[in-house]
């Protein structure tokens, strides 16, 4: 039973990562590509869970889980930083609609 769960998690994680790479190759523009790149953290988590199920709590499994948790937790912040850079390159600033004084914006 443990082998089956390990194989399912490993194949799922691998396929998810391959789909992410395919999406980054095929999609046009950084925003569309970012959707796929950001999902790769979950593929890492699936692979780490496969190692955890296979080995139980060993040194390798603990560190793999810590690595995957780091990537899954910081992935959204990284995606935001990249999207922010893309938007500033595209429009000149982060939020071009807020150029005027606060009173002018309310009009």
């Amino acid at each position, binding site marked *: 039973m443990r082998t089956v769960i390990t194989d399912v998690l490993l194949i799922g994680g691998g396929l998810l990562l391959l789909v992410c790479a395919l999406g980054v190759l095929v999609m046009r523009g*950084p925003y569309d590509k970012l959707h796929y790149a950001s999902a*790769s953290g979950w593929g890492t988590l699936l692979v780490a869970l496969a190692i955890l199920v296979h080995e139980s709590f060993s040194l390798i499994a603990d*560190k793999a889980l*810590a690595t995957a948790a780091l990537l899954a937790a910081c992935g959204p912040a990284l995606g935001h930083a*990249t999207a922010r850079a893309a938007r500033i390159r595209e429009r000149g600033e982060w939020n071009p609609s807020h150029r005027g004084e606060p009173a002018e914006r309310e009009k």
Partner: protein
Amino acid sequence: MNAWLIAALALLPALLVCGVTCFFSAAIDGLVALELASTLSVVELMLLSEGTGRQPFIDLALVLAAMGLIGSVAFARLMEGGP
């Protein structure tokens, strides 16, 4: 060759795809591909560590994950003003 090493081998084309995107796309698209390549390299090291039973690879994966995140954020900040 066990299942972990086969999975590591199967993920190599994904790294190649990221390299192709970095070379032939715009700079900001290349940054996205670089972030994915960083994650894929971490997974490759995790799989190699489990497949070969050598613990130093998982330490490399942990350090690469942290350095990759910091490097990607630094690249993104640089690209806000660069060409």
